[in-house]
Protein backbone atom coordinates (compact mmCIF):
# COMPACT_ATOMS: atom_id res chain seq x y z
CA UNK A 1 0.00 0.00 0.00
CA UNK A 2 2.67 2.47 1.07
CA UNK A 3 6.39 2.07 0.49
CA UNK A 4 8.79 4.72 1.68
CA UNK A 5 12.34 3.97 0.55
CA UNK A 6 15.47 5.80 1.67
CA UNK A 7 13.62 9.01 2.49
CA UNK A 8 15.66 12.06 3.40
CA UNK A 9 13.57 15.09 4.27
CA UNK A 10 13.77 18.34 6.18
CA UNK A 11 12.73 21.96 6.19
CA UNK A 12 16.08 23.67 5.74
CA UNK A 13 18.66 22.99 3.10
CA UNK A 14 21.48 20.80 4.43
CA UNK A 15 19.69 20.07 7.72
CA UNK A 16 17.54 17.01 7.12
CA UNK A 17 15.22 15.94 9.90
CA UNK A 18 15.10 12.42 8.46
CA UNK A 19 17.97 10.65 6.82
CA UNK A 20 17.67 7.53 4.69
CA UNK A 21 14.54 6.12 6.30
CA UNK A 22 12.49 3.25 4.89
CA UNK A 23 9.09 2.05 5.96
CA UNK A 24 6.42 -0.10 4.34
CA UNK A 25 2.76 -0.55 5.19
CA UNK A 26 1.04 -3.52 3.54
CA UNK A 27 -2.58 -3.50 2.39
CA UNK A 28 -4.87 -3.81 5.38
CA UNK A 29 -2.00 -3.65 7.82
CA UNK A 30 -1.77 -1.36 10.85
CA UNK A 31 1.73 -0.08 11.56
CA UNK A 32 2.66 1.92 14.62
CA UNK A 33 5.57 4.32 14.44
CA UNK A 34 7.06 4.98 17.83
CA UNK A 35 9.72 7.48 18.71
CA UNK A 36 10.64 10.38 20.97
CA UNK A 37 9.70 13.99 20.20
CA UNK A 38 11.68 15.64 17.45
CA UNK A 39 12.87 12.44 15.79
CA UNK A 40 11.04 13.22 12.53
CA UNK A 41 7.96 11.02 12.85
CA UNK A 42 5.60 13.80 11.84
CA UNK A 43 7.79 14.78 8.92
CA UNK A 44 7.67 11.20 7.69
CA UNK A 45 3.88 11.24 8.10
CA UNK A 46 3.70 14.45 6.04
CA UNK A 47 5.84 12.88 3.32
CA UNK A 48 3.60 9.80 3.29
CA UNK A 49 0.51 12.02 3.01
CA UNK A 50 2.10 13.80 0.02
CA UNK A 51 2.18 17.04 1.97
CA UNK A 52 5.94 17.46 2.07
CA UNK A 53 8.43 16.85 -0.72
CA UNK A 54 11.37 14.71 0.47
CA UNK A 55 14.89 15.77 -0.54
CA UNK A 56 15.70 12.21 -1.60
CA UNK A 57 14.08 8.80 -1.71
CA UNK A 58 10.99 7.38 -3.32
CA UNK A 59 7.39 7.10 -2.22
CA UNK A 60 5.21 4.43 -3.77
CA UNK A 61 1.57 4.80 -2.89
CA UNK A 62 -0.98 2.18 -3.95
CA UNK A 63 1.38 0.95 -6.68
CA UNK A 64 2.01 4.44 -8.10
CA UNK A 65 5.39 6.11 -7.74
CA UNK A 66 4.86 9.63 -6.46
CA UNK A 67 6.60 12.45 -8.32
CA UNK A 68 4.72 15.52 -7.15
CA UNK A 69 3.57 16.71 -3.77
CA UNK A 70 0.95 19.02 -2.25
CA UNK A 71 -1.19 20.69 -4.92
CA UNK A 72 0.85 19.20 -7.74
CA UNK A 73 0.05 15.64 -6.70
CA UNK A 74 -2.89 14.21 -8.68
CA UNK A 75 -6.10 14.68 -6.70
CA UNK A 76 -7.02 10.99 -6.86
CA UNK A 77 -3.67 10.05 -5.32
CA UNK A 78 -3.85 12.76 -2.66
CA UNK A 79 -7.25 11.63 -1.50
CA UNK A 80 -6.12 8.00 -1.23
CA UNK A 81 -4.62 9.05 2.10
CA UNK A 82 -6.61 10.46 5.01
CA UNK A 83 -4.71 12.41 7.66
CA UNK A 84 -5.52 13.30 11.25
CA UNK A 85 -3.13 15.71 12.93
CA UNK A 86 -2.16 16.16 16.53
CA UNK A 87 -3.87 19.46 17.30
CA UNK A 88 -7.54 19.62 16.30
CA UNK A 89 -7.58 23.39 17.01
CA UNK A 90 -4.87 23.97 14.42
CA UNK A 91 -6.22 21.58 11.83
CA UNK A 92 -9.78 22.91 11.65
CA UNK A 93 -10.68 26.02 9.69
CA UNK A 94 -11.98 28.27 12.49
CA UNK A 95 -14.80 29.68 10.33
CA UNK A 96 -16.52 26.37 9.57
CA UNK A 97 -19.27 24.59 11.48
CA UNK A 98 -18.51 20.96 12.25
CA UNK A 99 -20.94 19.79 9.55
CA UNK A 100 -19.14 21.87 6.90
CA UNK A 101 -15.77 20.83 8.27
CA UNK A 102 -16.58 17.16 7.75
CA UNK A 103 -18.18 17.83 4.35
CA UNK A 104 -15.32 20.02 3.06
CA UNK A 105 -13.44 17.22 1.18
CA UNK A 106 -16.70 16.16 -0.51
CA UNK A 107 -17.27 19.74 -1.68
CA UNK A 108 -13.64 20.10 -2.80
CA UNK A 109 -13.92 16.98 -4.95
CA UNK A 110 -17.35 17.87 -6.36
CA UNK A 111 -19.39 15.21 -4.58
CA UNK A 112 -22.00 17.42 -2.95
CA UNK A 113 -24.86 14.94 -3.38
CA UNK A 114 -23.32 12.55 -0.87
CA UNK A 115 -22.92 15.17 1.84
CA UNK A 116 -26.08 14.71 3.90
CA UNK A 117 -25.96 10.94 4.10
CA UNK A 118 -22.19 10.61 4.53
CA UNK A 119 -21.86 13.31 7.20
CA UNK A 120 -24.67 11.86 9.31
CA UNK A 121 -23.22 8.38 8.99
CA UNK A 122 -19.73 9.53 10.03
CA UNK A 123 -20.99 11.75 12.84
CA UNK A 124 -22.64 8.67 14.30
CA UNK A 125 -19.49 6.59 13.76
CA UNK A 126 -17.21 9.02 15.63
CA UNK A 127 -19.82 9.82 18.30
CA UNK A 128 -20.82 13.38 17.49
CA UNK A 129 -24.46 13.77 18.44
CA UNK A 130 -27.05 16.38 19.28
CA UNK A 131 -26.52 19.91 18.02
CA UNK A 132 -22.73 19.55 17.86
CA UNK A 133 -22.70 19.45 14.06
CA UNK A 134 -24.23 22.92 13.87
CA UNK A 135 -21.65 24.43 16.20
CA UNK A 136 -18.56 26.32 15.11
CA UNK A 137 -15.07 24.99 15.76
CA UNK A 138 -14.60 27.43 18.66
CA UNK A 139 -17.78 26.21 20.35
CA UNK A 140 -16.69 22.62 20.97
CA UNK A 141 -13.98 20.96 23.05
CA UNK A 142 -10.71 19.62 21.69
CA UNK A 143 -12.00 16.06 21.93
CA UNK A 144 -15.18 16.87 20.01
CA UNK A 145 -13.20 18.74 17.38
CA UNK A 146 -10.78 15.84 16.97
CA UNK A 147 -13.76 13.52 16.41
CA UNK A 148 -14.84 15.86 13.59
CA UNK A 149 -11.29 15.88 12.17
CA UNK A 150 -11.28 12.07 12.13
CA UNK A 151 -14.65 12.12 10.36
CA UNK A 152 -13.22 14.57 7.80
CA UNK A 153 -10.25 12.26 7.19
CA UNK A 154 -12.61 9.32 6.61
CA UNK A 155 -15.20 11.10 4.49
CA UNK A 156 -13.53 10.27 1.14
CA UNK A 157 -13.01 6.62 2.19
CA UNK A 158 -9.19 6.67 2.11
CA UNK A 159 -7.36 3.38 1.59
CA UNK A 160 -4.63 4.54 3.97
CA UNK A 161 -5.23 6.47 7.16
CA UNK A 162 -2.38 8.35 8.80
CA UNK A 163 -2.91 9.34 12.42
CA UNK A 164 -0.14 11.70 13.46
CA UNK A 165 -0.29 11.74 17.27
CA UNK A 166 -4.07 11.75 16.90
CA UNK A 167 -4.75 11.09 20.58
CA UNK A 168 -1.82 12.91 22.20
CA UNK A 169 -3.99 15.78 23.41
CA UNK A 170 -7.03 13.74 24.44
CA UNK A 171 -8.23 11.97 27.57
CA UNK A 172 -8.41 8.19 27.85
CA UNK A 173 -12.12 7.78 27.06
CA UNK A 174 -11.96 9.93 23.91
CA UNK A 175 -8.79 8.10 22.87
CA UNK A 176 -10.59 4.78 23.20
CA UNK A 177 -13.60 6.07 21.26
CA UNK A 178 -11.46 7.39 18.40
CA UNK A 179 -9.36 4.23 18.15
CA UNK A 180 -12.57 2.19 18.11
CA UNK A 181 -13.95 4.38 15.31
CA UNK A 182 -10.75 3.92 13.27
CA UNK A 183 -10.84 0.14 13.80
CA UNK A 184 -14.52 -0.06 12.82
CA UNK A 185 -13.70 1.79 9.60
CA UNK A 186 -10.77 -0.52 8.89
CA UNK A 187 -12.82 -3.66 9.49
CA UNK A 188 -15.38 -2.37 7.03
CA UNK A 189 -12.97 -1.22 4.29
CA UNK A 190 -9.71 -3.17 4.84
CA UNK A 191 -7.87 0.15 4.86
CA UNK A 192 -4.26 0.39 6.03
CA UNK A 193 -3.16 2.47 9.00
CA UNK A 194 -0.01 4.32 9.90
CA UNK A 195 -0.30 5.45 13.52
CA UNK A 196 2.40 7.79 14.73
CA UNK A 197 2.85 8.35 18.44
CA UNK A 198 4.98 8.02 21.53
CA UNK A 199 2.61 5.93 23.63
CA UNK A 200 4.02 2.42 23.35
CA UNK A 201 1.19 0.70 25.22
CA UNK A 202 -1.43 2.24 22.96
CA UNK A 203 0.43 1.50 19.71
CA UNK A 204 1.22 -2.08 20.75
CA UNK A 205 -2.45 -2.78 21.43
CA UNK A 206 -3.71 -0.89 18.40
CA UNK A 207 -1.33 -1.96 15.62
CA UNK A 208 -0.24 -5.22 14.00
CA UNK A 209 3.39 -4.24 14.41
CA UNK A 210 5.24 -1.29 15.87
CA UNK A 211 8.40 0.24 14.48
CA UNK A 212 10.53 1.93 17.08
CA UNK A 213 12.93 4.74 16.34
CA UNK A 214 15.84 5.83 18.43
CA UNK A 215 16.43 9.56 18.88
CA UNK A 216 17.72 11.48 15.89
CA UNK A 217 17.17 8.77 13.31
CA UNK A 218 20.18 7.22 11.57
CA UNK A 219 22.18 10.39 12.12
Amino acid at each position, binding site marked *: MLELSNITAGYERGKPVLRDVSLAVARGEAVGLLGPSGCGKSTLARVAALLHRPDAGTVVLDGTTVHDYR*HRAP*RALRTTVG*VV*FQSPRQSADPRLRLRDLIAE*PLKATGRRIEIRERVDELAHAVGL*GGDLLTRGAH*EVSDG*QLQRACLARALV*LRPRLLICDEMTAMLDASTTAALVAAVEAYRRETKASLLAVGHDQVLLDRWCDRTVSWAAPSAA
Partner: protein
Amino acid sequence: MADIRSIRAVRPVRDIRPNRSTRTLRVGASAAVMAAVVLAVLLVPPLVQLDEQAVDLARKLQPPSWQHPFGTDDVGRDLLLRCVYGLRVSLLVGVVAALAATLIGTAVGAIAGAFGGWTDRVLMRLVDTFSSVPHLLLGIFVVAMFRPGVWPVVVSVALTHWLSTARIVRSEILSLRSRPYIDAAISGGASRRRVAVRHLLPGVLPQAALAAVLMVPHAMWHESALSFLGLGLPAHQASLGNLVQSARGSLLAGDWWPTLFPGLLLIVPTLAIAGLAGAWRDRLAPRRRSELML
Protein backbone atom coordinates in the same frame (compact mmCIF):
# COMPACT_ATOMS: atom_id res chain seq x y z
CA MET B 1 -17.82 7.66 28.41
CA ALA B 2 -19.65 10.86 29.23
CA ASP B 3 -22.63 11.70 27.09
CA ILE B 4 -21.21 14.19 24.64
CA ARG B 5 -24.55 15.94 24.34
CA SER B 6 -24.40 16.95 27.98
CA ILE B 7 -21.00 18.63 27.64
CA ARG B 8 -21.43 22.36 27.22
CA ALA B 9 -19.03 24.45 25.21
CA VAL B 10 -16.96 26.79 27.33
CA ARG B 11 -15.45 30.05 26.19
CA PRO B 12 -12.40 30.78 28.29
CA VAL B 13 -12.03 34.30 26.95
CA ARG B 14 -11.12 36.90 29.54
CA ASP B 15 -12.85 40.13 28.69
CA ILE B 16 -10.35 42.97 28.69
CA ARG B 17 -12.55 45.52 26.96
CA PRO B 18 -14.09 48.50 28.75
CA ASN B 19 -17.32 47.64 30.51
CA ARG B 20 -20.45 47.06 28.52
CA SER B 21 -22.29 50.34 29.14
CA THR B 22 -19.24 52.43 28.18
CA ARG B 23 -18.90 50.38 25.02
CA THR B 24 -22.57 50.68 24.10
CA LEU B 25 -22.46 54.43 24.67
CA ARG B 26 -19.34 54.81 22.54
CA VAL B 27 -20.71 52.71 19.68
CA GLY B 28 -24.11 54.45 19.85
CA ALA B 29 -22.59 57.93 19.81
CA SER B 30 -20.21 57.01 16.98
CA ALA B 31 -23.03 55.53 14.92
CA ALA B 32 -25.24 58.58 15.51
CA VAL B 33 -22.47 60.98 14.46
CA MET B 34 -21.64 58.99 11.35
CA ALA B 35 -25.33 58.72 10.41
CA ALA B 36 -25.75 62.51 10.79
CA VAL B 37 -22.61 63.21 8.76
CA VAL B 38 -23.54 60.84 5.96
CA LEU B 39 -27.14 62.08 5.78
CA ALA B 40 -25.95 65.70 5.76
CA VAL B 41 -23.49 65.29 2.90
CA LEU B 42 -25.89 63.14 0.88
CA LEU B 43 -29.13 65.11 1.39
CA VAL B 44 -28.22 68.76 1.95
CA PRO B 45 -26.66 69.59 -1.44
CA PRO B 46 -29.50 68.20 -3.64
CA LEU B 47 -32.36 69.26 -1.32
CA VAL B 48 -31.32 72.72 -0.20
CA GLN B 49 -30.02 73.98 -3.53
CA LEU B 50 -28.21 76.96 -2.05
CA ASP B 51 -25.05 78.28 -3.68
CA GLU B 52 -22.19 77.58 -1.33
CA GLN B 53 -20.07 80.04 -3.34
CA ALA B 54 -22.55 82.93 -2.92
CA VAL B 55 -20.54 85.97 -1.81
CA ASP B 56 -22.08 88.70 0.37
CA LEU B 57 -19.41 91.25 1.25
CA ALA B 58 -21.84 93.19 3.46
CA ARG B 59 -22.01 90.21 5.81
CA LYS B 60 -18.37 89.20 5.93
CA LEU B 61 -16.88 87.55 9.06
CA GLN B 62 -20.07 87.46 11.08
CA PRO B 63 -19.91 85.34 14.24
CA PRO B 64 -22.28 82.39 14.59
CA SER B 65 -25.94 83.48 14.73
CA TRP B 66 -29.34 81.91 14.04
CA GLN B 67 -29.12 82.94 10.42
CA HIS B 68 -25.55 81.62 10.00
CA PRO B 69 -25.03 78.94 12.69
CA PHE B 70 -21.33 78.57 11.83
CA GLY B 71 -20.88 82.29 10.97
CA THR B 72 -19.59 83.63 7.67
CA ASP B 73 -16.13 83.77 6.14
CA ASP B 74 -14.04 86.74 4.97
CA VAL B 75 -16.14 87.25 1.82
CA GLY B 76 -19.50 86.63 3.52
CA ARG B 77 -20.11 83.05 2.44
CA ASP B 78 -22.17 80.88 4.82
CA LEU B 79 -19.76 78.58 6.65
CA LEU B 80 -22.28 75.89 7.59
CA LEU B 81 -23.09 75.32 3.95
CA ARG B 82 -19.41 75.41 2.96
CA CYS B 83 -18.56 72.97 5.74
CA VAL B 84 -21.19 70.51 4.49
CA TYR B 85 -19.80 70.75 0.94
CA GLY B 86 -16.26 70.50 2.29
CA LEU B 87 -17.11 67.44 4.35
CA ARG B 88 -18.69 65.90 1.26
CA VAL B 89 -15.47 66.25 -0.72
CA SER B 90 -13.34 65.05 2.18
CA LEU B 91 -15.52 61.99 2.77
CA LEU B 92 -15.57 61.16 -0.93
CA VAL B 93 -11.78 61.39 -1.13
CA GLY B 94 -11.49 59.44 2.14
CA VAL B 95 -13.76 56.57 1.14
CA VAL B 96 -12.58 56.17 -2.47
CA ALA B 97 -8.90 56.52 -1.62
CA ALA B 98 -9.20 54.11 1.30
CA LEU B 99 -10.97 51.53 -0.89
CA ALA B 100 -8.38 51.86 -3.64
CA ALA B 101 -5.47 51.72 -1.21
CA THR B 102 -6.94 48.61 0.44
CA LEU B 103 -7.45 46.89 -2.92
CA ILE B 104 -3.84 47.57 -3.95
CA GLY B 105 -2.54 46.59 -0.52
CA THR B 106 -4.57 43.38 -0.33
CA ALA B 107 -3.55 42.33 -3.83
CA VAL B 108 0.16 42.98 -3.25
CA GLY B 109 0.12 41.42 0.22
CA ALA B 110 -1.83 38.34 -0.88
CA ILE B 111 0.43 37.74 -3.90
CA ALA B 112 3.58 38.19 -1.81
CA GLY B 113 2.27 35.92 0.95
CA ALA B 114 0.78 33.22 -1.24
CA PHE B 115 3.66 32.91 -3.73
CA GLY B 116 6.57 33.47 -1.34
CA GLY B 117 10.16 33.17 -2.53
CA TRP B 118 11.44 35.80 -4.92
CA THR B 119 8.01 37.31 -5.61
CA ASP B 120 7.67 37.99 -1.91
CA ARG B 121 11.18 39.42 -1.59
CA VAL B 122 10.82 41.77 -4.56
CA LEU B 123 7.36 43.02 -3.55
CA MET B 124 8.33 43.59 0.06
CA ARG B 125 11.48 45.49 -0.90
CA LEU B 126 9.20 47.62 -3.08
CA VAL B 127 7.04 48.29 -0.03
CA ASP B 128 10.15 49.19 2.00
CA THR B 129 11.30 51.56 -0.73
CA PHE B 130 7.94 53.34 -0.77
CA SER B 131 7.87 53.50 3.04
CA SER B 132 11.33 55.08 3.21
CA VAL B 133 10.00 58.26 1.56
CA PRO B 134 7.75 60.39 3.81
CA HIS B 135 4.34 59.77 2.31
CA LEU B 136 3.21 63.41 2.39
CA LEU B 137 6.22 64.20 0.20
CA LEU B 138 5.37 61.33 -2.15
CA GLY B 139 1.74 62.50 -2.19
CA ILE B 140 2.83 66.04 -3.08
CA PHE B 141 4.94 64.64 -5.91
CA VAL B 142 1.89 62.81 -7.32
CA VAL B 143 -0.53 65.78 -7.12
CA ALA B 144 2.13 68.06 -8.63
CA MET B 145 1.96 66.04 -11.84
CA PHE B 146 -1.72 66.83 -12.44
CA ARG B 147 -4.04 69.83 -12.63
CA PRO B 148 -5.60 70.45 -9.15
CA GLY B 149 -8.82 68.51 -8.58
CA VAL B 150 -10.46 65.72 -6.62
CA TRP B 151 -9.09 62.75 -8.58
CA PRO B 152 -5.38 63.61 -8.38
CA VAL B 153 -5.83 63.86 -4.61
CA VAL B 154 -7.55 60.45 -4.53
CA VAL B 155 -4.75 58.91 -6.62
CA SER B 156 -2.10 60.55 -4.48
CA VAL B 157 -3.60 59.29 -1.23
CA ALA B 158 -4.30 55.79 -2.61
CA LEU B 159 -0.77 55.38 -3.99
CA THR B 160 0.83 56.32 -0.70
CA HIS B 161 -1.39 54.41 1.72
CA TRP B 162 -1.46 50.78 0.55
CA LEU B 163 1.81 49.89 2.26
CA SER B 164 0.55 49.07 5.75
CA THR B 165 -2.37 47.03 4.36
CA ALA B 166 0.05 45.06 2.16
CA ARG B 167 2.17 44.26 5.22
CA ILE B 168 -0.84 43.24 7.33
CA VAL B 169 -2.34 41.02 4.61
CA ARG B 170 0.99 39.38 3.78
CA SER B 171 1.76 38.47 7.37
CA GLU B 172 -1.78 37.14 7.90
CA ILE B 173 -1.54 34.99 4.75
CA LEU B 174 1.90 33.71 5.78
CA SER B 175 0.66 32.70 9.19
CA LEU B 176 -2.47 31.05 7.76
CA ARG B 177 -0.58 29.23 5.02
CA SER B 178 1.45 27.11 7.40
CA ARG B 179 -1.52 26.01 9.54
CA PRO B 180 -2.31 22.30 9.53
CA TYR B 181 -5.85 23.03 8.32
CA ILE B 182 -4.39 24.08 4.98
CA ASP B 183 -2.55 20.72 4.88
CA ALA B 184 -5.83 19.01 5.75
CA ALA B 185 -7.61 20.82 2.91
CA ILE B 186 -4.91 19.82 0.41
CA SER B 187 -5.10 16.24 1.61
CA GLY B 188 -8.88 16.42 1.18
CA GLY B 189 -8.41 17.18 -2.51
CA ALA B 190 -8.83 20.98 -2.48
CA SER B 191 -7.38 22.77 -5.49
CA ARG B 192 -4.96 25.66 -5.17
CA ARG B 193 -7.77 28.05 -6.02
CA ARG B 194 -10.14 26.54 -3.49
CA VAL B 195 -7.55 26.81 -0.73
CA ALA B 196 -6.94 30.47 -1.63
CA VAL B 197 -10.60 31.47 -2.03
CA ARG B 198 -12.16 29.36 0.70
CA HIS B 199 -9.49 29.18 3.39
CA LEU B 200 -6.90 31.93 2.94
CA LEU B 201 -8.81 35.00 1.71
CA PRO B 202 -11.73 34.72 4.16
CA GLY B 203 -9.11 34.61 6.88
CA VAL B 204 -7.60 37.96 5.89
CA LEU B 205 -10.74 39.77 4.71
CA PRO B 206 -11.83 40.97 8.17
CA GLN B 207 -8.36 42.41 8.76
CA ALA B 208 -8.32 44.05 5.32
CA ALA B 209 -11.82 45.49 5.78
CA LEU B 210 -10.90 46.86 9.18
CA ALA B 211 -7.76 48.41 7.71
CA ALA B 212 -9.93 50.00 5.01
CA VAL B 213 -12.29 51.56 7.55
CA LEU B 214 -9.43 52.92 9.63
CA MET B 215 -7.89 54.27 6.44
CA VAL B 216 -10.90 56.55 5.77
CA PRO B 217 -10.11 59.19 8.43
CA HIS B 218 -6.43 58.92 7.60
CA ALA B 219 -7.17 59.67 3.95
CA MET B 220 -9.43 62.60 4.98
CA TRP B 221 -6.60 64.12 7.00
CA HIS B 222 -4.22 63.60 4.11
CA GLU B 223 -6.60 65.38 1.74
CA SER B 224 -6.90 68.24 4.22
CA ALA B 225 -3.14 68.45 4.56
CA LEU B 226 -2.69 68.66 0.80
CA SER B 227 -5.43 71.28 0.47
CA PHE B 228 -4.03 73.22 3.41
CA LEU B 229 -0.70 73.37 1.62
CA GLY B 230 -2.52 74.66 -1.44
CA LEU B 231 -1.76 71.49 -3.43
CA GLY B 232 -5.09 69.72 -3.17
CA LEU B 233 -8.35 71.06 -4.45
CA PRO B 234 -8.60 74.41 -6.26
CA ALA B 235 -8.79 77.25 -3.72
CA HIS B 236 -12.41 78.25 -4.44
CA GLN B 237 -13.78 74.75 -3.94
CA ALA B 238 -14.87 73.98 -0.40
CA SER B 239 -12.93 71.25 1.32
CA LEU B 240 -12.09 71.02 5.00
CA GLY B 241 -8.41 71.70 4.28
CA ASN B 242 -9.18 74.68 2.06
CA LEU B 243 -11.56 76.14 4.66
CA VAL B 244 -8.94 76.01 7.40
CA GLN B 245 -6.30 77.36 5.03
CA SER B 246 -8.31 80.38 3.92
CA ALA B 247 -9.33 81.16 7.51
CA ARG B 248 -5.80 81.40 8.85
CA GLY B 249 -5.64 85.17 8.34
CA SER B 250 -8.84 85.93 10.22
CA LEU B 251 -7.80 83.69 13.13
CA LEU B 252 -5.00 86.18 13.95
CA ALA B 253 -7.63 88.94 14.07
CA GLY B 254 -9.55 86.98 16.73
CA ASP B 255 -12.22 85.47 14.48
CA TRP B 256 -12.26 81.89 15.75
CA TRP B 257 -15.27 80.40 13.95
CA PRO B 258 -13.92 79.97 10.38
CA THR B 259 -11.14 77.62 11.63
CA LEU B 260 -12.93 75.99 14.56
CA PHE B 261 -15.88 74.45 12.71
CA PRO B 262 -14.01 72.85 9.78
CA GLY B 263 -11.44 71.59 12.31
CA LEU B 264 -14.17 70.04 14.46
CA LEU B 265 -15.73 68.44 11.40
CA LEU B 266 -12.41 66.75 10.74
CA ILE B 267 -11.92 65.57 14.32
CA VAL B 268 -15.45 64.42 15.19
CA PRO B 269 -15.97 61.98 12.24
CA THR B 270 -12.44 60.66 12.82
CA LEU B 271 -13.31 59.78 16.41
CA ALA B 272 -16.67 58.34 15.33
CA ILE B 273 -15.06 56.06 12.73
CA ALA B 274 -12.42 55.01 15.25
CA GLY B 275 -15.20 54.21 17.75
CA LEU B 276 -17.07 52.01 15.28
CA ALA B 277 -13.91 50.33 14.00
CA GLY B 278 -12.79 49.69 17.57
CA ALA B 279 -16.04 47.92 18.40
CA TRP B 280 -15.73 45.86 15.24
CA ARG B 281 -12.12 44.96 16.03
CA ASP B 282 -13.17 43.82 19.51
CA ARG B 283 -15.72 41.46 17.98
CA LEU B 284 -13.20 40.16 15.45
CA ALA B 285 -10.42 39.37 17.87
CA PRO B 286 -11.54 39.81 21.47
CA ARG B 287 -8.27 38.51 22.81
CA ARG B 288 -6.06 40.74 20.76
CA ARG B 289 -5.35 44.08 22.36
CA SER B 290 -3.79 46.38 19.81
CA GLU B 291 -4.25 50.10 19.69
CA LEU B 292 -6.06 51.57 16.73
CA MET B 293 -3.67 53.26 14.37
CA LEU B 294 -5.15 56.23 12.64
